[in-house]
């Protein structure tokens, strides 16, 4: 089982790496980070702050975009191109296929984020001429971004297991947007009564909560993120991702392919 899982994971990673689109996106982000100090010159005194905001926001946002971009085709492309036929005739279980694909994309995103973070720190070094302890704490934001990727990949994979790429992209992006103002959703739910209140509360928990994972402003102003916040958010992200991936497995398990 593990050798099949790792084979599918690595192959998914390899496919993403050989996809030239990925390089364009990464290049774009690196360019963005490189030009951020210029932006800071218009806004006096906040060069570092602007660079941190641009850098961390780019790592987060573009990671999500890549997760969606590649995620929508993870399963549907294999069905469309019928490359799945020669996979399913082997001892591969359908759930192994789904989980392997998930892990492969997550691996891609983590490697991506690492590269962008390195570029970001280089830009930071160039602007500030030396790095301090507070610069190291910025990594917490990157870690939380990776937690976002875990959840976003699971969501996109879920849609990919039964829907076409275009709809998957729309639904996934919609869920991301709603997820960023999950706090508002919770407030609406708290303020509503009856059935609407129940529905909204349910929605507030079903939708991925990205609001609590965005700590960029905090770390930019060198405010510490408490350890238990990190712990519980990690737990939430892992559990949510596992649940959604299980959903994808369920959908895919008895699906008649074309």
């Amino acid at each position: 089982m593990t050798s099949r899982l790792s084979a599918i994971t690595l192959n998914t990673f390899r496919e993403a790496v050989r996809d030239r689109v990925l390089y364009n996106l990464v290049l774009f982000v690196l360019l963005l980070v490189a030009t951020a100090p210029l932006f800071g010159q218009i806004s006096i005194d906040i060069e570092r702050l602007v660079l941190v905001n641009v850098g961390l926001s780019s790592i987060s946002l573009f990671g999500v975009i890549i997760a969606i971009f590649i995620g929508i085709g993870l399963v549907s492309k294999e069905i469309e191109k019928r490359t799945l036929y020669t996979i399913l005739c082997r001892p591969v279980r359908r759930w192994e296929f789904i989980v392997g694909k998930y892990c492969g994309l997550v691996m891609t995103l983590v490697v991506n984020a690492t590269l962008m973070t390195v570029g970001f720190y280089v830009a930071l070094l160039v602007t500030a001429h030396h790095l301090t302890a507070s610069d190291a704490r910025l990594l917490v934001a990157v870690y939380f971004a990776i937690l976002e990727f875990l959840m976003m990949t699971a969501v996109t994979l879920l849609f990919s297991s039964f829907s076409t790429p275009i709809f998957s992209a729309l639904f996934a992006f919609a869920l991301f947007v709603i997820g960023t103002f999950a706090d508002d959703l919770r407030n609406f739910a708290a303020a509503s009564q009856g059935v609407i209140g129940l529905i909204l509360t349910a929605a507030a928990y079903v939708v991925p909560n990205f609001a609590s994972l965005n700590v960029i402003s905090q770390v930019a102003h060198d405010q510490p993120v408490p350890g238990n916040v990190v712990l519980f958010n990690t737990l939430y992200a892992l559990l949510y991702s596992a649940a959604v991936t299980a959903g994808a497995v369920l959908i895919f398990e008895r699906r008649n392919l074309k």
Partner: protein
Amino acid sequence: MHAIEIQGLSKNYFVGFWKKWALPALKPLDLTVESGETFGFLGPNGAGKTTTLKLLMGIIFPTAGAARVLGHDFHDPEIKHKIGFLPEQPYFYDYLSAPELLDYYAQLSGVPSAGRKQRIGALLERVGLGDVGKKQLRKFSKGMLQRVGIAQAIIHNPEVIFLDEPMSGLDPLGRHEVRDLIQGLKDEGKTIFFSTHILSDAEALCDRVAVIHKGELRGVGVVNDLRSSSAGKTEVIWQGAHALAAVVQYAMESHVTGDTVRVIAQTESLDPLLDRLRQQQARLVSVTPLHGTLEEYFLSKTSEQEPVRA
């Protein structure tokens, strides 16, 4: 133990706005294939051949029925170590090279890493792709892809191999080479189940064939037997209608058009028949031996008839 045992396997697609109309793609199928047999699954396009194979591979799920492969339930993932599949007009991950693809599939099929590389190299040589190196599959021609397809079907040395239209889209040279490959597998004692609509291929390779039409099994037979049923006849054409009376006892069929007569007779009776015609001073036009072909069997089974159980 049969290599493949299919019992009442059927598939209906539900169509229409409310998905209520049942469109039968495969009517209940009963079929067995023995170990070491090369079994041909014949039928025109859309007859249900690919549906059957997809059902057996677990790509789609049956409406009813069951099947066993090498004694195990056909959905059991463990027997998939021992079966290989070449889909129709296969498509592979075009960003991989041939060795990478085979290595990936070998891993998934549980081929141990020791010696895997050599096995892949040897296999690529065997299917005539020894010199492709690191070229990505997106650059392969159709014929090359078909060979990769066969390679991936046998990389893990399965006992039973399923091929869906293995010759489709190949030029005559390609078809010849694929035929040779299948013959080689046959010689190794593998069980081969392949679907095709090209009868000459089935005739050359198969021990037994089944004919399927419009989702229904129409007949199963041993190739040699089917062939010989229409073998041993000769067609004689001459001018001199008066001579017919003298040879009518040898004629199984006769047609007269003006003064030209066309007769089909047993090859054994050819000599006395020709003697008689000479005596009658008939003018011979042609003497053509008829070889029985699968085609007749096929055509007879795919005309509108009552279905025959195997």
